[in-house]
């Protein structure tokens, strides 16, 4: 979905650059990331993926709260230029906050990566909606960075699983003061 956004937003002024970005992010975010994560899941032998710290009702409630907060926050901002859509800012902020919330509230290392990806998607969406003249190279570099990040984190998960026999980050608490 996010991959299609560059094309939809710049529909009038479609350039080869936009199409490349769009197709690459569809491939990376839609195919490679799920594949990497599924592979990590299989290696780590996880049956139940979601174990929120606060329980499901609280998570849902927090989601609603963050949704409201994003709308309020977006209403506070003064926009300098015509908007793509009034929903662009609230949606990207909500995605961002939900990403942060998932990282904080989930125990498994793999759900933390998913949280990181959601957060990154929120930022990416914001960038798409507000910056229409970014150069191709920069976009590609950012995409590459995130790709490598997920790749390295995937390797780390593999090692965590092998060393600890689980990927529960709450038990990663040997180092503290």
């Amino acid at each position: 979905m996010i991959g299609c956004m560059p094309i939809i937003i710049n529909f009038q002024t479609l350039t080869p650059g936009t199409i490349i970005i769009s197709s690459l992010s569809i491939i990376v975010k839609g195919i490679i990331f799920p594949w990497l994560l599924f592979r990590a899941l299989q290696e780590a032998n996880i049956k139940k993926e979601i174990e929120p710290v606060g329980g499901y009702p609280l998570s849902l409630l927090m989601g609603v709260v963050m949704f409201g907060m994003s709308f309020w926050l977006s209403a506070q901002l003064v926009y300098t230029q015509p908007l793509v859509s009034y929903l662009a800012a609230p949606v990207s902020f909500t995605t961002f906050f939900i990403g942060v919330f998932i990282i904080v509230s989930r125990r498994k290392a793999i759900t933390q990566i998913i949280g990181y990806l959601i957060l990154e998607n929120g930022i990416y969406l914001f960038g798409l909606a507000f910056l229409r003249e970014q150069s191709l190279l920069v976009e590609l570099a950012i995409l590459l960075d995130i790709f490598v990040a997920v790749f390295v984190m995937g390797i780390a998960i593999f090692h965590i699983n092998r060393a600890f026999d689980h990927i529960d980050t709450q038990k990663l608490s040997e180092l503290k003061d």
Partner: protein
Amino acid sequence: MITILMITIPFSFGVIAFFIRNDFMRRILIIGCSVIHLILTSLVWAKCLDVSSNEWLGFDNVSIIFLTITSVLFSGAAVYAIRYLSDEKIYFKNEDGKRSVFSPEAVFSGCFLLFLSTMTMVIASQHLAVLWVAVEATTLASAPLIYFHRTKRSLEATWKYLLICSVGIAIALLGIFFLAVANNNQGEMLLINMIENAQGMNIPWLKAAFLLLFVGYGTKMGLAPFHTWLPDAHSEAPSVVSALLSGALLNCALLGILRGYQICIAAGLKTYCQEIFIVFGLLSIFFAAVFILKQTDYKRMLAYSSVEHMGIITLGIGLGGSAVFGAMLNMLGHSLTKAGLFFTAGNILSSFKTKKISDIRALIAGRTRWTGILWMVGFLLIIGTPPSGIFLGKFIILKECIFQRRYGITFAFLITLAIVFIGMARIFISMTQGAPVEKDNNNNSCNVDDFWRIFVPGLFFVLIISIGIYFPAWLARALESAALGLGGF
């Protein structure tokens, strides 16, 4: 051209190092790369500095200081690493005989060089988005370095480092997008363009952008409330890597914040930013002081001392005026001294095989005599005893603080520094003095009073003392022009 070479040479060497099976060849590669980097750095110094408006990469008055620190530190670290790796080799053979696709040393050497390449790219970036990409790349290049020892604890440290820094840097990316919105999306995000356009920027967006950049890069830099990854990573990483992380990487993250600050100065938001700098600076010093007091692990203690120094530098930049010069000087001093201390800590760790302060006594007697002397000298330098460059830096910051009649800040600054002094003195003195502990199985420990293992930290300490005694005019000029670019004088 030089700039591009400085990034691509370590990068290609790093990639090659992954595939070399011969240890000796790989070590030659590291040394060669550090020498080339050092030569190129001096070429940058020799050449007049001028950043033309449309280049994405280049060095200006501010970044050349950062470049020099990184280059010198890396050369020292490279020399030390050679010795360290050959000692660790024995250690690894004792631990396990398993072999993976790349040997740990190949991964180490490769990532070590990639790390240099990405750090140089951070320093050279004149384009804010490129800067972001480079900072994220430093995280990814250094994560395998922290995991070098393949223990559970180092794995935990690596995971925390990866996740906390990645999230932090993601926030900085949001900050960069905010900055572009504030700039009304005019053209590329080159620093020089942004500074020119700063007057017409949208102030609320710019303020939000600076805050996000500060929090984002501040995480990577180890400022107080976001520093949680730092002690873990610094204590678990091999000492060579800790030295680079602390002496070079934290500065690179600082540069990210400073770029945002330069734009804010041009837009007339100087006082707004300065308040943020001062608050987080003091907070960092305070946090570090509290944690140093009850520390039981000497590498963690050094890590908290890095948090403290980052706090001092931030405070200095926040105060403005001549304190910015002091901050730059303190940064130079901190990088050299802290790297030297981490190298020495590496010697102690190799000899005693423990990171517990209570298990180490009488460094200054017996086989570890030189290491013990260095450890004590390093302590005196890092807390800022007069013949040290750090003393000058702290003193200038303090002077500016009093000059501006900010007595509250002065008081807080002095009290926290005193706490740090007491905490560190207790640790260092108890480690160097006293009766030796009986060691039972130290047959496999290597000789840490080896020439190269003493030479590198010794050289750094001599350098920093000589800066305190004789301050070369060219260095003063360079630091002054850097301070000028950052709202000081």
